[in-house]
């Protein structure tokens, strides 16, 4: 009897094991996405003075929320700001992550254990606290940079305004993100069989040559992965500029597109346009990240074909 039941139980088992994940996915991923799209296609119509219970009703809006979102200069400005920010963050952060990973993997380097741990440490510091600590370090009355420049009688830059603000924000992201990416790349480096470098070394390659010609090409998949996640994270920057706002008036409530979504939804109370903007950000994020993956995939195939 039990023997006959077993094939059925075994067929149902994976679905039973997956049930919590699938239920959570439906409730907290699929349903909200569907609801956001639904909201983005509707709007509030106000009749008369907008008083009384029947005066405000939700009606079909078609794509007008999207048209408004895409023609909104605030959103475009925000996107440009995040674009500039991302062009600093992603190359600097991943460049440093790759450099440190290669150093950790090289011979005759001292302090590797210490370096690995300390560079990884900022991962354990919440973005809000990282922004807060750097934010204070940027203030003229606190910053060591200002102290030094003041002592030398040189002009003191405003780190929390103008063009320097991009560097200031990028620095926070680089500080927080380099360590994790370094570990991802370093793990990939260690997976390279030792006889590969051994052969190159016997052929007389220097460590630098081994790093550039053998190691970097072999960890390309890890680099692609870190690039991919860095792009996604960059486009969603929210906590750091939000945290720095109390310290400067150089950051508006719509500095990044995500901050604008928050303002529209909760300060202005227009969830419909906020939903449309959120969907636009999601689509752009997916398009950019998949576009990047395809480009990276095409290049890898090309190189393999050679």
């Amino acid at each position, binding site marked *: 009897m*039990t023997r006959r039941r*077993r094939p059925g139980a*075994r067929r149902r*088992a*994976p679905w039973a*094991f*997956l049930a919590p*994940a*699938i239920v959570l*996915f439906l*409730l*907290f*991923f699929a*349903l*909200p*996405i569907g*609801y*956001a799209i639904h*909201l983005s296609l509707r709007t509030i119509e106000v009749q008369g003075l907008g008083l009384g219970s029947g005066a405000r009703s939700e009606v079909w809006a078609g794509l007008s929320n999207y048209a408004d979102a895409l023609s909104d200069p605030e959103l475009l400005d925000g996107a440009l700001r995040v674009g500039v920010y991302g062009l600093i963050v992603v190359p600097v952060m991943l460049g440093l992550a790759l450099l*440190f990973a290669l*150093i950790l993997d090289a011979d005759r*380097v*001292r302090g590797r254990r210490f*370096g*690995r*741990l*300390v*560079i*990884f440490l900022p991962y*354990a*510091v*919440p973005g*809000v*606290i990282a922004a*807060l*600590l750097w934010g*204070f*370090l940027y*203030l003229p009355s*606190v910053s060591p940079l200002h*102290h030094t420049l003041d002592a030398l009688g040189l002009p003191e830059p405003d780190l929390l305004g103008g063009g320097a603000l991009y560097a200031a924000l990028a620095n926070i992201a680089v*500080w927080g993100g380099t*360590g994790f990416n370094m*570990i991802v790349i*370093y793990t990939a480096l*260690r997976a390279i069989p030792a006889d590969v470098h051994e052969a190159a*070394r*016997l052929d007389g390659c220097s460590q630098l040559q081994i790093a550039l010609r053998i190691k970097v090409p072999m960890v390309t998949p890890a680099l692609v992965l870190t690039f991919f996640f860095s792009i*996604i994270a960059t486009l*969603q920057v*929210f*906590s750091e500029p939000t945290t720095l706002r*109390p310290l400067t008036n150089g950051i508006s409530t719509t500095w990044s597109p*995500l901050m604008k979504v*928050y303002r529209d*939804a*909760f300060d202005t109370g227009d969830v419909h346009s906020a*939903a449309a903007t959120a969907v636009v950000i*999601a689509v752009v994020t997916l398009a950019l*990240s998949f576009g990047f993956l395809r480009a990276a995939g095409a290049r890898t195939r090309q190189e393999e074909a050679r």
Partner: protein
Amino acid sequence: MTAQALRPGRAAPRRVALLPTAALLLGALYCLVPVAWVLVASTKAGDELFSTFTFAPGTGLLDNIADLSAYRDGVYWRWMANSVLYAGVGAVLSCAVSALGGYALAVYRFRGREAVFGVLLAGVLMPPVILAVPQYLLLAEADLAGSRLSVLLPVLLSPYGIYLARIYATAAVPSDVLEAARMDGAGEWRTFRTIALPMMLPGLVTIFLFQFVAIWNNFLLPFIMLSDDEKFPMTLGLYTLLNQGSNSPSLYTLVITGSLLAVLPLIALFLFIQRFWSLDLLTGAVKS
């Protein structure tokens, strides 16, 4: 190294590579700057913060901690307790969901397996904001917005956790062991609980840590969901404190001392745990 050691002509076979070592130490120094600063700054009394040199220690650490603890009847420690609660409970439950799902995806062959895996993984790509705003509105419909559940429920499903759990289960649980258990008459659930789960444990610790840090560091979700500061986690509490500080700068000392006390537990946790746990596990690297 062996190749060099064999050559007797070389004077110093274990010569340190200076440039890479210097670069690594410089990077480590850069990563320590804000941590060193917050250590120093939290010892400064309110009037010292903006007047003395950045890295000159002050005199008021204990006073600062006392002031922080006294601030609004110790609301700071409630934030700390909330963060521990959200991150602890959230990470345990999320780890359980990941373990079950990852095990199912690794061990069973069934129709739709790759499709389910792909759809769950795609969740990684969804920007939290497109999720958080409708999540808030939906939870408000269910009268849950503003409650502790509203910051706990949405973080239980971790696509990355399921991805890692699948890798660990594939690597750590041999299929012939499972087959033997079934032959002995163990049911599917018992096989999982008594045989597979202990084998997956080192990997599950990693998923727990990953989720713990993710929830501990989260800002957007509680920022959107919560309005009652009794329920705030640490990140949101410190943010509101900083926000009020622009009107009364004396709060800045509290913010800085609070940041130090918030950062120390996680740093201590990592320093402690790396003795018997490898960072590499975080990226799904499994010893073969």
